[in-house]
């Protein structure tokens, strides 16, 4: 233990401090609770900024914890996303009903974030599993946080039950990996190579565990229910941060640890990509509830992400990270709008958005741009992300897969346009009234929009990510 270690662990430590602050804050009187929100937001901002400090690659705790520029970047993407979610959730937490939740909410959220950090920073399957559970278990509680709602309770228990089984399956896979290789350390695993049936089976079980978090079809069934039932901020956390962490982890493990088994996992993910895109799309196009709708949309997007795995080199990895970043900002912008609407009017259905543009042009435009970004329409960032994903898949000659994917992208455009249609074309006798956005929400939108508008044109960002691979 020395200062270097502390510097490397600065984010985790600050996160622990933040958790402790919540414990103390929860003791304060109700009237002062609100100030906790501001304190937390500013310390979280500090925390996010700290992540951008330069650092040297390091391996701590005998290889349990690994830190390098790539992992720092991945963590930063997660913390920026979380920051945006926190900004967006501030007005939800400020509602009188929710003031008791503040402490527990932040605490659970930060611990899941820390879990994701450990997933990414893991140098050992033990840490990875631990991080995964740390990221999952408090989330199940968060899903049940709307205590007055039946659906929230249902979401919590559904998530817990299915994720418990999925983590059991993952563990079963890990135990086989242990049996075959005799170690959990990534550094040791990456040099061992074994293509026996058992290792394939183990790998599939492991992938299934993470695919569950990524909600790839057929491991996705929890997604829509939980998204619908959970409080909106938690849903957006699910769809962006939690999914991002799972994606990054899967990416790091497959590319860095099981690089030799490339053929196996790319085939598996190829199959999963197709089923995910198709099924996600088919479900999405008939959803009326915006949260469910976005659930299936994010399932489809996860299917697209799998295309990035088809390239075993740095192109694939870069593209994955890049796409995740774009997906995060686009999705968060949409969730931001939904959050504002839902907080004030409790409306969550697509029909409620009829005529939205008339009353809330700004928010509608944000939605529009972000939906286009999700659909992959230029010149917003989503186009670039998707294009590079397709390129990654095509680089392995999988043109049929690319074709299926692009057709699915077209189909997905259909339902994104349904939302656009609702907002811009349909009329409504009782439209959502003109809504007020707080400073925090504005800041969140600013971050998202900047991302959506600029990322695509900034090739330097892409190059930077690539330089880390």
């Amino acid at each position, binding site marked *: 233990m020395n200062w270097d270690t502390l510097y490397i662990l600065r984010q985790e430590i600050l996160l622990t401090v933040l958790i402790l602050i919540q414990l103390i804050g929860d003791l304060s009187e109700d009237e002062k609770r609100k100030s906790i929100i501001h304190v937390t937001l500013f310390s979280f901002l500090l925390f996010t900024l700290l992540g951008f400090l330069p650092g040297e690659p390091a391996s701590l705790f005998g290889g349990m914890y690994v830190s390098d520029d790539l992992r720092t970047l991945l963590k930063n993407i997660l913390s920026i996303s979380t920051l945006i979610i926190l900004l967006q959730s501030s007005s939800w937490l400020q509602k009188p009903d929710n003031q008791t939740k503040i402490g527990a909410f932040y605490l659970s959220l930060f611990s899941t974030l820390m879990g994701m950090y450990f997933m990414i920073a893991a140098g050992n399957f033990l840490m990875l599993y631990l991080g995964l559970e740390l990221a999952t278990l408090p989330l199940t509680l968060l899903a049940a946080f709307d205590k007055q709602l039946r659906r929230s309770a249902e979401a919590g228990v559904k998530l817990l039950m299915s994720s418990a089984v999925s983590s059991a399956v993952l563990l079963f896979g890990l135990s086989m990996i242990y049996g075959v290789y005799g170690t959990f350390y990534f550094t040791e695993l990456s040099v061992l190579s074994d293509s026996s049936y058992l290792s394939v089976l183990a790998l*599939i079980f492991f992938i299934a565990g993470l695919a569950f978090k990524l909600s790839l079809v057929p*491991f996705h*069934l929890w997604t829509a229910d939980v998204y619908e039932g959970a409080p909106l901020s938690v849903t957006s956390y699910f769809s962006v941060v939690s999914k991002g962490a799972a994606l990054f982890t899967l990416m790091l493990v497959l590319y860095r640890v099981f690089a030799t088994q490339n053929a196996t996992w790319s085939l598996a993910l190829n199959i999963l990509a197709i089923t995910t895109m198709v099924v996600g799309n088919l*479900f999405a196009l008939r959803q009326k509830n915006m949260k469910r709708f976005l659930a299936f949309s994010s399932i489809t997007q996860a299917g697209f992400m799998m295309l990035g795995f088809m390239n075993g080199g740095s192109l694939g990895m870069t593209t994955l990270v890049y796409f995740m970043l774009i997906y995060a900002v686009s999705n968060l912008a949409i969730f931001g709008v939904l959050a504002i609407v839902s907080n004030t009017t409790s409306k969550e259905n697509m029909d409620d958005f009829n005529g939205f543009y008339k009353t809330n042009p700004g928010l509608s435009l944000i939605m529009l741009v972000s939906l286009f970004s999700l659909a992959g329409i230029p010149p917003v960032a989503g186009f670039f992300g998707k294009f590079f994903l397709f390129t990654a898949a095509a680089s392995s000659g999988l043109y049929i897969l690319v074709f299926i994917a692009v057709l699915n992208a077209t189909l997905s455009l259909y339902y994104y346009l349904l939302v656009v249609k609702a907002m811009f074309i349909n009329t409504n006798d009782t439209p959502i009234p003109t809504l007020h956005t707080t400073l925090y929400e504005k800041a969140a939108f600013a971050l998202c929009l900047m991302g959506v508008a600029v990322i695509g044109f900034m090739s330097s960002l892409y190059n930077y990510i690539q330089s880390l691979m």
Partner: protein
Amino acid sequence: MDYSFTLLIVLLPLAGFALLGLFHDRLKPMVAGTLGTLNLLIITLLSYYTAFSYFTQGNGESGYTAIKAFNVLWLSFTDSLQIQLGILLDPLSVMMLVVITTVSLMVHIYSLGYMKGEKGFQRYYAFLSLFTFSMLGLVVATNIFQMYIFWELVGVSSYLLIGFYYERPSAVAASKKAFIVTRFADLGFLLGILLLSFYTHTFDFTTLTSMDGVAISNPPTAIFLGMSVTTWAMLLIFMGGAGKSAMFPLHIWLPDAMEGPTPVSALIHAATMVVAGVYLVARLFPVYALSSPDSLEVIAYVGSFTSLFAAIIACTQLDIKRVLAFSTLSQIGYMMVALGVSGYGGEEGLGYMAALFHLFTHAFFKALLFLGAGSVIHAVHSNLMTDMGGLRKFMPITHITFLIACLTIAGIPPLSGFFSKDEILVAAFEHNKIIFAVQWLVAGITAFYMFRLYFNIFWNRTPHFHHTPHESPALMTFPLLFLAIASVLAGFVPFHELVTSDGKAFHTALHWMIAIPSVLIAFVGIGVAALFYLKPNILPEKMTHSMKGMYSLVYHKFYIDELYLFITHQLIFNFISRPVAWFDRQIVDGTMNFIGEATVYGSNVINKMQSGHIQWYIWFFTSGVLLLAFLLLYLN
């Protein structure tokens, strides 16, 4: 001599059209009419001057030479295939210049009176200018594509003029019919051009018709469906000509075209445009005669049949303009016959000369007939013979000029029609006896139906008129007189020295053996007409009654129109267009919609997957894992 001024002949009418067209609502009607007429007067004088200078420069040993007064590249397809716009002066085109400008000028003058007070008077003059421009551009074309361009323009001006009374549905329908039928023919023309130019690598008339050009010295001999491609090409080109010249079976538009103002009928549908087909064949005559005599044969038969066919129909029509229209068909049939039976060069080319001679004379007397009919219609406000009769007392000038025209067309010497028709019959006699016999018969029928017309208008019973008819104003009678004089004198133009197939003069003489029978049969025709129609009597009715079925068949123009209607409306509209539209909406678009609906259906089918039951979710998860593992382990 420098003929570049001839450019003005073409450009002035265009300028007139642009001026009248753009400012039609700013100009007073009479100002517009006068401007147009003066403009045309200048053009007419210019073309007379051209003709005078061209023909007086003499034809040396080699005959009249073609002069390209002007030629500019307009559009280039390939290095050899280029559209040039230019002016070609040779006997043929110069003769046509004279005919067109003369008739056009007369029509312009006549219309000042005839169309006075009509709504859209300015527009009328604009269209007339457009037509004159197009027609002049057509005849001076230096290459076949330029001709095609103006050919189309002529078609559209004809369309505009037929549909001049655009509020009258029948006029609209007639104009549409005229355009579409000729367009269909032009399709053949265009294909012919493409085919011909593909093998000869040129559009240029001079190159095409020169004796050492590819088209004649080395015509393509490739065979397609049993005919050489040259014949194909020339027949297709003739198809264009047949459309414009209303040869059977493409004649159906012409009678309907009488819906246009009568002066227009005189100009376009009697004197100028309808003979464009004759002009076209004449223009390419060396190619026809030397490379593809088979196609000439076809032309002869088509012409002959048309002339007989139209003449028979003309005997039954009651609308005086329609009688004249069928008479025009018949006369153009004569011209086609003449071309068809002609050979190339010297005496052999008699038919060629005769055809153009007849074109020349026909232009005058047929224009005269139409203008006279217009004058009558102007007076009685009706087109039908049944509303007329005894008009000789009211309209002396019209009566006299009309009589002259009827005599001319009947081929009574020494009027011009006699000479030109005689040459045709001679040529036909020398070539093909059957055709000769038909044409001889047609001459008689012609005399009959013309005098049927004449007697019914000016003699016969005098019906009750709402207003007492009176002679037309001087603006209208002047052209009648002028054209009457021209009809009388035109026969004395020494055509065999001026316009011949190879440009060289040859000698020709009156063939009494043929002239006498033809004059006789004309008199017979006149006599029968007089018997039937000079005085009101029941003979015609008896006659029609005794041949009722036959009469009605002929009266209905052999039901050709109905056949066309059936083909277009029933077959094409109902059996092609409608199914296509249906197919497109139901099958093609239906497929696209089906894809969408199938997707939605698929979405509904897998709906149950999201059943809401945790255990089902978990089961799905685990079986998914196992299945995936199974796939990868044992099926890979």
